[in-house]
């Protein structure tokens, strides 16, 4: 069974090599003339003002939290999805109830205007 995972290893290896190769090519081919402007953080071509390391609104964090909840839901969906063919109608109804319970949370977040951008 473990032999099947060599594909994953190969995939990870290639995924690691490609960005390194891109950096290597640009390092070898680019002209190396540093100006202060080149060291600036890129912000749509505008000059940056003040600190680039700023504090974000807590509104972003709620998106992350709700993402985590539904990420955990994926963990429960995964075995069900793999064995969907053999599990039958009963498991399908169970999973519908599972998703419905979590949709209450989604509805609550919606009602509390978590997704509204102020």
């Amino acid at each position, binding site marked *: *069974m*473990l032999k099947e*995972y060599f594909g*994953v*290893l190969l995939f990870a290896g290639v995924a690691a090599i490609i960005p390194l190769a891109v950096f290597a090519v640009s390092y070898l081919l680019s002209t190396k003339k540093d100006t202060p402007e080149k060291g600036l953080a890129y912000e749509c071509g505008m000059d940056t003002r003040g*600190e680039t*390391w700023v*504090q*974000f609104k*807590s509104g*972003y*964090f*709620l998106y*992350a*939290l*709700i*993402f*985590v*909840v539904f*990420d*955990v*839901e*994926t*963990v*429960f969906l*995964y*075995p*069900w999805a*793999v*064995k969907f063919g053999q*599990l039958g109608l*009963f*498991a399908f109804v*169970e*999973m519908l*109830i*599972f*998703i419905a*319970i*979590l949709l*209450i*949370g989604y509805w*609550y*977040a919606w009602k*509390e205007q*978590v997704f509204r951008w102020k």
Partner: protein
Amino acid sequence: MSNEAVYGIMFYLVSAVVLLSAVAAVTLRNLIHAALFLAISFVSVAGIYVLLHADFLAAVQVLIYGGAIPVLIAFGVMLTRTPGAAGSNPVNTKTYIWGLGITGALFAVIMLSLLKSKFAMQGLISKEPSIEGLARLMLGDFLIPFEFAAILLLAAMIGAIILARGGEAK
């Protein structure tokens, strides 16, 4: 090369990545770099799970520890005000001795119990992917705990929303 040799090489390779990225996560001065190395460490632990034939656990490790936890840490870094990226992960040199003592004691306890226990590994590892049995058990015998997991998640989500919005005016 024999299967055992390949297995051994893979185990030590993955363990080295886990440990080195964990060390980098602790020692790097930029908090975002530290968080990225922590994510690498978490994902490599999934490799250890794969080597132990725990395929479902490996998938969970990648989904939760590779996806969700680094996102939360990154958001945590973004939300806190620090003077800059360079010194955002300072080292506390005052408590080095304490840290060394406590981790040393923990290491000793774990090693002692590892050396004393006998591992009956033969016959425990099943050849079929663990997800098959898990799906059958989770949606069959353990139906009620499964649905309770949904309620637990719901409670966590609503609690997080209430806590995060507590300071804001309605």
